[in-house]
């Protein structure tokens, strides 16, 4: 049986069958859902907006993954913990006391500013420390070695934060300016969702400008292109790598703040799953590519949010939302079968990955 597989055309056939099966199921499910029409329009809009908001968070975290991957070619498994640690600290030391004293609603913008500063400082601090201790000494080691230290760092920070602040769920106070909904084109949309989406767009633009236009951004790109040549050109590689880590973790820290605005509770374990999802998003978009990470995050958020209702509801599958990750990963496989380098990945796929 295996000998027959030697024929490459048989393999192509199998792959086509694979694709066809997924596509048929998806299309069939979608048509069945549309015919059955279980949801009113408001449900669809709510689901889609929730998907975009969730996708924005994934995008912000995924950018950190992709930036680090771009310069070091390593999967920074601990990235989800950078996302978690900043907002956990800010919640305990700032948001909760300020919420109790009423400061949060009296001076909302000062509060947000303070929370942002603390969150970003902590996230960046932890990222730089991790880079210095666990990654930098291993830059010349085989590629799987820093992956393992990253996993170690992930476990370490998770449990370190748990030890600091305790294992229970920490509520993040509701801010009055972000409570409730506004009506856009007749559809009620949560204010916090709007904040997340707008903030993400601004952050993406800012990052793009930074990487493309500033000198530091150029040095990061040079290091990503080729570390040795960059060093020869007089670029401080360590510094560029640190800057990249700082940038990525700052984005993750801000994603943490937005997360707290939307979901209003934080927990020491909150970083692990978004970390994996962001990694998925980065790969989906083409790892190493910043717009790819953003797009991948958005796609992933949408698949998770809309997918179960759209693809599975019509097929009569019980508890479709339980299977949202199955949908997300199946779509990932599907996309990667068509484009093995991800949606926007070009440069890296062949030579480095």
């Amino acid at each position, binding site marked *: 049986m295996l000998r027959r597989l030697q024929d490459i055309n048989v393999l192509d056939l199998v792959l086509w069958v694979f694709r066809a099966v997924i596509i048929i199921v998806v299309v069939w499910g979608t048509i069945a859902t549309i015919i059955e029409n279980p*949801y009113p329009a408001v*449900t669809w809009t*709510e689901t889609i907006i*929730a998907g975009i908001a969730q996708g924005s968070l994934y995008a912000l975290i995924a950018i950190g993954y992709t930036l680090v991957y771009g310069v070091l070619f390593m999967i920074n498994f601990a990235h989800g913990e950078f996302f978690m640690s900043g907002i956990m600290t800010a919640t305990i030391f700032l948001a909760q006391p300020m919420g109790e004293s009423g400061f949060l609603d009296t001076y909302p913008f000062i509060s947000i500013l303070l929370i942002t500063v603390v969150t970003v400082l902590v996230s960046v601090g932890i990222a730089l420390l991790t880079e210095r201790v666990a990654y930098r000494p291993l830059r010349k080691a085989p590629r799987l070695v820093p992956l393992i230290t990253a996993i170690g760092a992930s476990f370490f920070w998770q449990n370190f934060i748990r030890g600091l602040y305790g*294992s*229970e769920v920490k509520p993040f106070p509701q801010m009055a300016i972000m409570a409730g909904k506004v009506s856009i084109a007749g559809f009620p949309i949560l204010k916090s969702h709007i904040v997340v989406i707008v903030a993400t767009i601004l952050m993406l633009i800012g990052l793009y400008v930074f990487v493309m236009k500033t000198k530091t951004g150029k040095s990061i790109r040079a290091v990503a292109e080729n570390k040795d040549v960059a060093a020869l050109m007089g670029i401080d590689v360590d510094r560029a790598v640190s800057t990249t880590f700082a940038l990525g973790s700052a984005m993750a820290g801000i994603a943490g703040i937005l997360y707290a605005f939307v979901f209003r509770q934080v927990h020491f374990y909150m970083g692990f799953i978004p970390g994996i999802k962001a990694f998925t998003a980065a790969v989906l978009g083409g790892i190493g590519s910043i717009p790819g990470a953003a797009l991948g995050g958005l796609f992933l958020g949408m698949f998770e*949010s809309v997918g*179960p209702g759209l693809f599975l509801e019509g097929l009569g599958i019980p508890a479709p939302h339980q299977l949202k990750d199955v949908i997300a990963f199946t779509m990932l496989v599907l996309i990667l079968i068509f484009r093995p380098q991800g949606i926007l990945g070009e440069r890296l796929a062949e030579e480095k990955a």
Partner: protein
Amino acid sequence: MLKRSFIIVGLLVIASMALAACGGPTFECEDPIGCVTYGADEPIRIASALVISGPNTDLGTDSQYGVEIAIDFKGEIMGHAIELQAEDDGCSAEGGQSAGQKIVSDPTIVAVVGTSCSGAGVPMSEVVSEAGYAMVSPSNTSPALTDPESAWNPGYLRTAHNDKVQGKAMADFAYNVLGVTSAAAIHDGDPYTEGLAAVFAASFEELGGTIVEFTAVNKGDTDMRPVLSAVAAAGPPELLYYPVFTAEGGFLTKQAKEVSGLEGTVLSAADGMISDAAIEAVGEAGEGMYFSGPDLSFSGGLYEDFIAKYEEKYGAKPISVFHAHAFDAANMIFACIEEVAMQDGDSIHIGRQALRTCLYATSGFEGITGELTCNEYGDCADPKISVSQLNGGAYERIWP
């Protein structure tokens, strides 16, 4: 070199100590599965096997605190201090088995409070029972564990409510007291929540109600809006029951208030969300929500003392609900040790079968979670499930 010195050091130490071995037991143990003996200044040792690592840490840590406070309150039994050997059940079957094997390899442990998770309870119950120990779980709720046709073992008891009891009580309350006729249930894939939701749904339909949607989320999910929107679109139901834990429960509660169509739906959850941490997590959104579970105000002053001690000792309000069940479980064990232990000079002997028999015979035991009476398969929880409502940031018992 290292190996050799290790062997030599080991041998020398053991040999020098072996010379000093002396003395023999004068007491004859007549218990069919053995006795535990504690000498003059030896503490009575009990073990806990609760989830104290990983994402469910708060559940197990809270229960362990309950056991520790029970030990503090009790002080000593017949002149012997009480010592706790805390193990981690990892909230998984393999974790439960390892913890169980560790416990039964220590002959000085007399009984176990554990496990936290039903999944860990199944293999542990087997290991512990086979070795002749007894265990009382504060938070296993799976019906299988006390079903002799399924996973029941003779050393297993629990102070937590069997899902069958609680799910049915909630359905009864919803249909007969609140008068709702349509409901939806959401679980998170945990055996506890899935079992409870399933029993609720079945009982509710049996009573004549309709379940418009029985669905699930995943542990670790944060965005519950899609699933809540689907629930809203399917009904919307008059009542939504989601017997999950604090993290997922907090998300569900807050987001349910923001999803169009669920404005008029009554929210309800189970004892996995009866805790101060859960009150804080649901915040304003949880006002008026119903919770099935034990009635902790039942015991009057005892629970208040307990809470005071808890805050003093651990610097926080209780982070979950099962500390109460764990406290009761530990006290049940203490009461039985007192009953069956035989004084022999300065030492005491505890027959393992006698302890089991005594535990199974527990009847009308006054605990924080109610009056505990064990049935023949080890279900000891007070059958009176109460329903509380969250009013002004505190639970208030409204039924029965």
